Each structure stands twice: as structure tokens, then as C-alpha cells.
């Protein structure tokens, strides 16, 4: 609970895990998307009710009033319950409503945080909610305070899978096992970690920066061990680093142990 945009939760086991809080701006954008979704739903409903109007105009009008109220109030409640804390807008922006203490989100919490929008909306454009959100240490609007919920950002989570990095890719360095062995010997833990992290995070870089970064790293690794010309001919610097990572981390003959014993603590802490 100390860092500005992070909520730290300490479990009774003494383990601390963090949740990144969503700021007012991203929540505003999510709200805008949700408003659009509600309006789309309402207009679809009115189109459907047009057909009913031919049969009974009064009943159609009554249904119109009731259903638009239900959609207006129930949209967020239903979706946040059904999708465990997410609406369309929150899904798009990778936000999620969670219990403020890290416990399971309850239905009553979803209902209360959404009904208390009536206060947060005041006097207009969610001014009260916005101010509460800015002042609150955990970026909660009044509805969140009452329901004990927070809105967090969901990190892109995937189990790190080293084998998949090379899936379907040919490693031209494998043709030179003695040079690979020399590479493993000469590369330090830190250097191997740089190569691995660069490959893991390759999609997060700007295109120009990505080319530049991989050129620099490839240059460094080329200076460590000189592979024959044909091994690196016609492949990009990124592919070269990918090959290096494969050579450094590839398990030996299908066993689960990393390629060289001393390379174990490299980027992957030994367990």
C-alpha cells in the first residue's frame, strides 16, 4: 500500500504480491466504451420494440421504458459478475474489478459499487467519483469504497515457456556443437539474461529501437565466439540472438536440465 500505483498485499505466509491499480484516465476510457455498448444495446432494443409497436404501441412503450432502465442499471452489474470483474470497456483496456483485500469478488460488492454510481456521477461527468479517485490512495471512487473493491490493471500473463521460443525455428548454430560449447563457456550469467530478456520482450519494443537493440546485442555475442560465415549468413540480428538463446538454454538430449551446469543460475534461478 506504499507505492503510488501499486497495491501490495501481504499474505499470512509473509509473501507479498502486488496489484497494479488502474488510474482515473484508463477507467474513464473504459467507461466511455461501456457507454457506447449500453447505447448500442439500447438502440438494438428499440429496433426490436418497433416490431412490437405494430401489435401494441402502449405495451411496446412500457417495455421500452423498463428494458432501457434494466440495461442502464444492469449492464455493469451483470457483466462484472459474469466476467469476474470485467465489462466490455474493462476487457478492452485490460482492467478488472477485484476485492480490495485480494479475496474473491462477491455479487453484493458488484451490485453496491454499481448502484453507488448515482453518487459518483454527481454533479455531472463523474466529478465526485473522479475527485474521490484522485484523492484516494487506492484510486477508489465512492462506490468502490463502499463495496471494498479496487480496479486493477491485468498484466499480460503467460507462463514463461522457453521451449516455445524456438518452436518451428531452425537454429543454424547447432551445426557447430564445439562453437556452441565455447559460447556457453564464455558467456556470463548476466549476458545470457540480457539475450533471453531481449527475446522475451521483443514485441514490446519500438520497431527502430528493436533493430538497434538486437544489432548491439548480436555484435556483442559475435565478439565472444566467431561462428563461420555461413552460420549467420542471411539471418537477422534478432534471429541470431534467438539462436544464441537456444544454444545457451537448450536442454541436453531431452532431459530437463539446462545445457551447461554453470549456466543454470543465468536468467533462470535454480530451484
Amino acid at each position, binding site marked *: 500500500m506504499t507505492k503510488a500505483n501499486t497495491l501490495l*498485499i501481504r499474505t499470512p505466509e509473509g509473501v507479498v*504480491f502486488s496489484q497494479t491499480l488502474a488510474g482515473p484516465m484508463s477507467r474513464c476510457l473504459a467507461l466511455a466504451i461501456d457507454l457506447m455498448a449500453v447505447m448500442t444495446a439500447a438502440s438494438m432494443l428499440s429496433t426490436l420494440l418497433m416490431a412490437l409497436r405494430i401489435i401494441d404501441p402502449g405495451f411496446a*412503450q412500457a417495455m421500452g421504458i423498463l428494458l432501457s432502465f434494466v440495461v442502464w442499471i444492469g449492464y455493469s452489474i451483470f457483466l462484472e459478475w459474469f466476467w469476474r470483474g470485467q465489462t466490455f470497456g474493462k476487457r478492452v483496456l485490460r482492467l478488472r474489478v477485484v476485492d480490495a483485500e485480494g479475496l474473491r469478488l462477491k455479487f453484493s460488492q458488484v*451490485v453496491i459499487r454499481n448502484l453507488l454510481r*448515482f*453518487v459518483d456521477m454527481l454533479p455531472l461527468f463523474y466529478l465526485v467519483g473522479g475527485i474521490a479517485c484522485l484523492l484516494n490512495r487506492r484510486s477508489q471512487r465512492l462506490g468502490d469504497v463502499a*463495496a471494498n473493491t479496487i480496479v486493477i490493471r491485468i498484466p499480460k500473463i503467460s*507462463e*514463461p515457456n522457453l521451449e516455445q521460443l524456438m518452436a518451428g525455428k531452425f537454429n543454424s548454430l547447432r551445426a557447430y556443437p564445439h562453437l556452441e560449447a565455447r559460447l556457453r563457456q564464455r558467456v556470463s550469467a548476466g549476458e545470457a539474461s540480457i539475450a533471453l530478456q531481449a527475446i522475451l520482450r521483443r514485441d514490446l519494443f519500438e520497431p527502430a529501437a528493436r533493430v538497434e537493440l538486437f544489432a548491439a546485442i548480436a555484435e556483442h555475442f559475435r565478439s565472444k565466439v566467431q561462428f563461420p560465415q555461413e552460420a549467420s549468413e542471411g539471418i537477422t540480428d534478432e534471429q541470431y540472438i534467438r539462436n544464441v538463446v537456444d544454444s545457451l538454454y537448450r536442454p541436453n538430449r531431452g532431459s530437463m536440465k539446462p545445457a551447461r551446469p554453470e549456466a543454470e543460475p543465468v536468467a533462470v534461478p535454480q*530451484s
Partner: protein
Amino acid sequence: MTTEQPYWAELESTLNRMEGDTRRALPLEQVQRLHYLYERTSAGLVRLNTFASEPETRRYLESLIARAYGEIHETRDRQHRFSPLTWFFQTLPQTFRRHIRAFWLSVGLTVAGAIFGGFAVAYDPDAKAAVLPEMFANHLGDPSERVAREEKNPDKTSAGGMSSFSAQLMVNNIGVSIRAMAFGMTWGIGTIIILFYNGIILGLVAVDYVMAGQAVFLLGWLLPHGSIELPAVIIGGQAGLVIASALVGWGRRDTLRARLRAVTPDLTTLIFGVALMLVWAGIVEAFFSQYHEPVLPYWVKIAFGLVELTLLIAFLGLCGRKAEASPTRRSGAATLQPAHD
């Protein structure tokens, strides 16, 4: 990491299973296994925290631990299967009685408003125009004239018009009740204003009609829907006052968060109860209350209203008392919590 990975994957798949079908209770061995996996993964995270180079893995483990933590440390009542009947006949009246003081306060505020409104119109007939909102515009004239007008044109609206009027009433009243609850977050000030203002309108209209000698018409017109609608709005106010009292927390030692957490399920129960009551009131108001003497004798309407009120009092006062008395059944009482919680 390679040796730990199978444990993480197992924890992840167990969590996926649990989150997918939370109604199913895990057998003891699986619970023990889950706890073991959770502790092992926690230990992995602690060890990993010393390595700065593994942000992805750390985030992955943090998210796993966050999910497992939610499952393991959740101590609040876990709903097995939501039963609407149990909720309606036990949870709702029990919850209402649990916060009976807030209800009486809510009644008191409405009555105070009504007395104020009554005095206002008795001493200054112009007050009516100043206080009544636009939707009550048809009450601005002389009550006797309105009674004569209504009695003369009994069948003026079609059934279709009635149903849209009914829908309008439900939406408006549910909106007012939700606001009365939500404004509890202003330390109750907003709720108090809403209840008092509602009381003023009620007192103003009532005294206006009584002074014009139209008391019977007034009862016949208001009682059939008012006997449910008015208590519903007052219960909405009760919910608002419950929030306010949790916020203020006079003389209580638990934290603000703990106090709010304790009342959240009750608020949900109360507001859903209010919505149900107002749906009923809206139907009655549009299809029953608006028909007057030549069509429907006033005594029928008054008797109907009184029967409704008696049933409501009996329901809120008596239902679920047996379950309350036996502790084993009470623990099984449903909170408003649909299926997969």
C-alpha cells in the same frame, strides 16, 4: 525453475477448475494439495524476488498467488446455491429486522417532512406551487376540482397507456430508492434530504386534499399503491442510513473497511427487496389506483390498500423468525448471491 514449473502449472489448472465451478466443494486431499501448491509457489516467488531479471515470471507467480490467496483465505459465507424463495422469505425480512433502527429513523424523517409539508400548505396555500415537482402538476389546482374531473372521465386511458405509465412509475420510484441508498455515502445527508423531501410532498398533498374535504378520495387513490410504495422508498432510505452508520462508525472499534464489508450483503438484499416492492406498486398504481368511484368503489380500494399493508407488516415482521431461532438453519440462510460464488 524447470523443476518448479509443473507445480505452477498444476496450481494454475486447479485454480481454473475452482473458478470455473465454485459451487463444487473440493475433497480434503485436493484442498491440502492446493494449500501445498500455494505455499510452494509462494516460496518460489520469494526466491525469485532476489533476481531482478525475471519480471515476466514474477508477474506470473504473483497473479497465481493472488488467485490462490483469494480462494484460500476467503472466510465469508460461501453460497452453494442461490435459492430465491429462501432469500425472499428468510433473508429479506431478517435483514430488514437486523437494521430496524435505521428503518425507524427513516420513518421518522419522512413523518417529520410530512408534518412540515402539511403545516406549509395549511398556512400558505402558495407553498404547493413552490414545492411540488413538475410530475405532480395535476395536483396544483383545487383538489375538489380534480376529484370531480377524475370521477367524470373514468375510462380515459387505454390499457397500453396504463402499462407505459406503470413502467414510468416503477423506473422513477426505483431510481429514487437507489438514490436514497446511494446518498448514504454522503454520511447520510443526501438520504436525509431525500426522505424529508418525500415526506414534504406526501404531507402537502394529503393535507391539501383533507382540507378540501376529499379525504376518502385521497385514501382510495393513495392506499392501494402507497401502502407498498411508501414503505419501499423508506426501506431505500433505511439502506442509505445503514451505509451512513457504517461510514460514521460511532463507538465501534472495527475499521471503516470492516464496517462497510459487513453491511454490503445487507444493502444488496434491501435494495433488491425494494425493487420487487416497487414493481408491484407500479402495477397497482397504473391499473388499479387510477380508477375512481363510479368504476371502483372507494371502500374496495381502501380495503385493498389496508390488506396489502397488513400483509407487508406481517411479512417483514414475522417471516424467517423460525429460521433465525435455530442456529443450524441460520448458517444456511441464503444471502443474495447467485450461482457461482
